[in-house]
């Protein structure tokens, strides 16, 4: 579609046609006291050259450290072809097109993406993505409340290993609609949800289980799923898509499977890039499809018998249902999804399994090395995926600062969110880390720990 700018005359003519004097009067229903003339604290405009220089200098501050931080966003190798293809002119747009059916290639890409996500999650339907993993949890919770009205509850029970940031975001998004989130306690030995806490729980509309947990440990997904279903609650799975190449799909959890799965799509071909843009994954069982927010692309047959793709189940979207829509924040992350689809196509199931397995092994190797250091121990027993919590014998902050001075990002400081675990640090190694990288981290940590011990004395 060509871009046709409006001339001054066009604008005058249009205003005259509808009998309005100027463009501002189209907005005169906004009370004058709500209009802001000047934004305090926003500096004067910079020239392109100035802003480009400023941004380059800020970007340089990030440096290129060796990162062992996971905690929800994961550094994986992205084949060059992924973004070479994703940034071709035909794909390079953040949105699904307004005349969606005129863009068959875009719709087919989304359809292929949905097919891959249903394959990974073992569920029937996927949408075309949401903003990110945390908002996908909020949407999943709202969806569960709509779909499970018979419980007359808006209380959501979280397994102990749900990402604490997801809980905050979900509570912020859904709080005004009366949803509340309670967290089950963690078993201090295993790092999984303490199942003893399940007795004497009041009515809940849904139970959220993150697998692998935020601590990298494994939750008793089958028990939690069956318990939730027996209580009349729906089960929302939060999953890492890379891990699903190896782990049990949410559709197979317990006797009946999880009802909804959501998660952060970033590990599938999207760079860390200081925190975004990422994309949210969302899939569900077919019986819930009409409560699923966002766009869904379907495959169909046209008048001439050719296969074609079309947006489907739109009747509940915001452009038709307005305030009654399933969601009003369901813009999908089209470009990220395009990259993820290409990433998954290039790797295939085997490739994704190898990424998952190598990440798991590198993390196991890292943990072996780190726990040999005096003053370092594993926080939780049992298996891990590609992330594990360790405990240090002195404060995490100073250790992380010393590591950063050596260009190493040593992990996610758990002691801020979970003071009960003591000096706990969450570390992650993906397939991007070589044995030399692991050795570098371990020897640096050892030196820092012994130096700081001397200081402490």
């Amino acid at each position, binding site marked *: 579609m060509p871009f046709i700018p409006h001339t001054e005359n066009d604008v005058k003519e249009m205003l005259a046609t509808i009998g309005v004097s100027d463009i501002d009067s189209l907005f005169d229903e906004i009370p004058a006291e709500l209009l802001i003339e000047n934004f305090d604290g926003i500096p004067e405009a910079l020239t392109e050259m100035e802003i480009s220089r400023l941004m380059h200098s800020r970007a340089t501050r990030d440096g290129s450290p060796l990162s062992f931080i996971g905690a929800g966003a994961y550094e994986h190798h992205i084949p060059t072809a992924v973004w070479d293809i994703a940034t071709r002119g035909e794909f390079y747009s953040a949105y699904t097109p307004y005349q969606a059916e005129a863009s068959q290639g875009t719709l087919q890409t989304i359809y292929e993406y949905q097919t891959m996500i249903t394959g990974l999650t073992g569920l029937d339907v996927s949408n075309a993505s949401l903003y990110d993993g945390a908002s996908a949890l909020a949407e999943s919770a709202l969806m569960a409340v709509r779909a499970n*009205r018979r419980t007359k509850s808006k209380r959501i029970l979280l397994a102990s290993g749900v990402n604490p940031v997801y809980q905050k975001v979900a509570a912020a998004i859904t709080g005004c609609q009366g949803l509340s989130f309670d967290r089950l306690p963690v078993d201090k030995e295993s790092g999984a949800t303490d199942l003893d806490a399940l007795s004497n729980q009041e009515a809940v509309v849904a139970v959220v289980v993150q697998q692998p947990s935020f601590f990298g440990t494994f939750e008793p997904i089958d028990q939690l799923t069956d318990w939730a279903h027996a209580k009349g609650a729906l089960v929302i799975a939060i999953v890492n898509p890379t891990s699903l190449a190896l782990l049990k799909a949410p559709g197979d959890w317990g006797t009946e499977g999880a009802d909804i799965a959501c998660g952060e799509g970033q590990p599938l071909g999207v760079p860390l890039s200081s925190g975004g843009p990422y994309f949210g994954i969302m899939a569900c069982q077919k019986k819930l499809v*009409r409560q699923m927010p966002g766009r869904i692309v379907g495959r169909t047959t046209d008048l001439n018998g050719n296969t074609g793709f079309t947006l489907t189940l739109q*009747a*509940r979207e915001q452009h038709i*249902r307005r305030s*009654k829509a399933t969601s009003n924040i369901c813009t999908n992350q089209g470009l990220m999804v395009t990259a993820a689809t290409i990433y998954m196509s290039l790797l295939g199931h085997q490739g994704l399994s190898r990424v998952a397995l190598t990440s798991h092994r590198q993390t196991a190797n890292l943990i072996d090395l780190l726990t040999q250091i005096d003053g370092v121990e594993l926080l939780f027993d049992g298996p891990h995926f590609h992330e594990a919590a360790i405990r240090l014998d002195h404060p995490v902050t100073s250790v992380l600062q010393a590591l950063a001075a050596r260009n190493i990002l040593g992990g996610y400081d758990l002691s801020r969110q979970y003071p009960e675990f003591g000096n706990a640090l969450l570390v992650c190694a993906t397939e991007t880390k070589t044995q030399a990288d692991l050795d570098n981290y371990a020897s640096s940590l050892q030196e820092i720990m012994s130096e700081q011990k001397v200081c402490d004395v």
Partner: protein
Amino acid sequence: MSDLPEDLRYTSEHEWLRQEEDGSVTVGITDHAQSALGDLVYVELPEVGQELEVGEEMAVVESVKAASDVYSPISGLVLEINVDLADEPEKINIDPYGDGWIVRLQSPSNIDSSDIMNPDSYQAMLDELEA
């Protein structure tokens, strides 16, 4: 010209009501409403045993182009829902006053309140809409 059975009562939201012999009230949407919505693909029903207030959302009827709320025209307890609509929502298109009924309510109030129209008044309203 849409079909308006004489023995029913109608609302401005295009619902119909039938007073049953046992005192309960059956509710559905009018022929005009089904025709305006087009082919229905899904109907969301209330729960049996649910208490509805006048004007409360009672059901959602979804066609390929729109999803619309059906508001309860009277207050009352949901006695029965038309479970056939789950698999055959098109019953509302084919037979809106018969097989396409939506819910049966137990209501303490008389359906002949001021907001409820007889066929002539409803027809007059439709004529005005089309004018």
